[in-house]
């Protein structure tokens, strides 16, 4: 699905990630942890081809990412749902329109019943017509998750999704991600919240990876 072989990533001559190899199997659940600035976000950006590796081989759904055209990459992002810490909403559109955005950009009319069901699933049915700035942090994250899954992607990448949330809201978001994984979706969560990882491991078989000194390694036994 997503496969990295000896991938390195440099920026302005400085190597940010080095010699990374990983295969994300369908239906797997991964946590990516490490200190701030370790390169978790960079790693996720490689996984949805916002960045290209400076060395090594990266394939997405069996295709070499370097050989993909811009349109192919755009099409591929409809198979990868991304949840950012800052959510990246279009503030002039309603929550409902933001959630339906992946369908809009692929010129597909959203199924309103499905859209309402999705908003209901993330607990935002009552906020469908609100603008993103009117939402709380937790609501924004759940709206971002709804947007990430509306195209029924194979992979969900979440970058510090609980960074701005209280513990209760973090657990609620985690349970949604676990639920998606149980539906067969591959989930990768970048987080430095070890309590969240422990909580997840109690619910799902998750693999924990750690980025340290530019390298990817399996996390310690305490996780």
């Amino acid at each position, binding site marked *: 699905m997503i496969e990295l072989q000896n991938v390195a990533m440099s920026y302005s001559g400085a190597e940010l990630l080095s010699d990374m190899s990983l295969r994300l199997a369908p239906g797997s659940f991964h946590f990516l942890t490490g200190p701030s600035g370790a390169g978790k976000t960079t790693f996720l950006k490689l996984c949805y081809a916002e*960045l290209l590796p400076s060395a090594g081989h990266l394939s997405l759904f069996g295709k070499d990412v370097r050989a993909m055209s811009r349109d192919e990459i755009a*099409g591929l*992002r*409809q198979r990868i749902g991304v949840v950012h810490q800052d959510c990246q909403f*279009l*503030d002039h559109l309603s929550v409902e*329109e933001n959630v339906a955005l*992946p369908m809009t*950009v692929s010129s597909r009319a959203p199924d309103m019943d499905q859209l309402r069901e999705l908003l209901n699933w993330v607990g935002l049915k009552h906020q469908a017509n609100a603008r993103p700035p009117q939402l709380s942090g937790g609501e924004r994250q759940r709206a971002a998750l709804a947007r990430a899954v509306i195209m029924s992607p194979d992979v969900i990448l979440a970058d510090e999704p609980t960074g701005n949330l209280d513990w209760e809201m973090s657990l609620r978001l985690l349970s949604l991600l676990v639920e998606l994984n149980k539906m067969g979706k591959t989930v990768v969560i970048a987080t430095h919240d070890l309590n969240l990882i422990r909580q997840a491991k109690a619910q799902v078989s998750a693999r924990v990876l750690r980025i340290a000194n530019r390298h990817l390694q399996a996390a310690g036994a305490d996780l």
Partner: protein
Amino acid sequence: MRATLSILTAETTGPDRVVPPTGFTARLTLFTAAAMAFLAVFALALSLATGRLADRWADSLARSATIRISAPPEQMEAQVAAVQEVLKTTPGVESSRVLGDEEMKGLLKPWFGPDLPVDALPLPKLIAVTETADGLDAEGLRLRLQAEAPGAIFDDHTRWRRPLVAAAERLRMLGLMSLVLIFGAMAGMITLAAQAALAANGQVIATLRLVGAKDAFIARAFVRRFTTRGLIGAVAGTVLGMVAIALLPSAEAAGGFLTGLGFSGLSWLWPLIIPPIAAIVAFAATRFAALRMLRRIR
């Protein structure tokens, strides 16, 4: 006024809604398109008017000539009769007419005033000649006049007609060049406005790319908006330009060149091509700017 402006700058519905409202660039594009279309109407009018002038000078003056007879008063009648006799037997002469005193007065009035004593002045006689469509042999006629009426000089207007026609043709070319420059400047300004809008919406574009939007989709959202604004502005500018041209004094009333700057008959339809051209220019300029900028974003 504000309500009208808000209608003109209103953001469209549907997929275009992914681009947030951008009031400043909307107004800039509308104003630019309107101003350029207004100027384009005048450039078009200039081009058409000079074209008509060049055609008229080239056609009508090409078929007219003048014979000037300078002779002592006692020989004048005989020389005029001799010239007329020559003209009667010259192939290519459709008609000829001796200009009377009143007509001579009329010709000299702009220089000497209305009270010119034509009888007291040793003025030459003028014979206006109209040629047939095939024309006449100017050199042959000159030689015959030299022999039959030595005081007669044939002038087929070639000497002064050619530079006038050339000047009119150049004015027509300048008018057409102005149109090209106007649309070029419009393309440049709309490109800048589109670039400003794209730069201001960098985060929006990044979000659209994140959720899988292709370049063509993002570009289309901007292109539609700027094309619509370009078209609306150009329609307004064209209408204003046509009204301004219609309000110019008529050519018959004053007779000067500038008053002939306008459209006549079916040529009033020509300005109607300006809005579609403006829309095409806006479409091409925005698409070019959008795709160029999008290539920098993964």
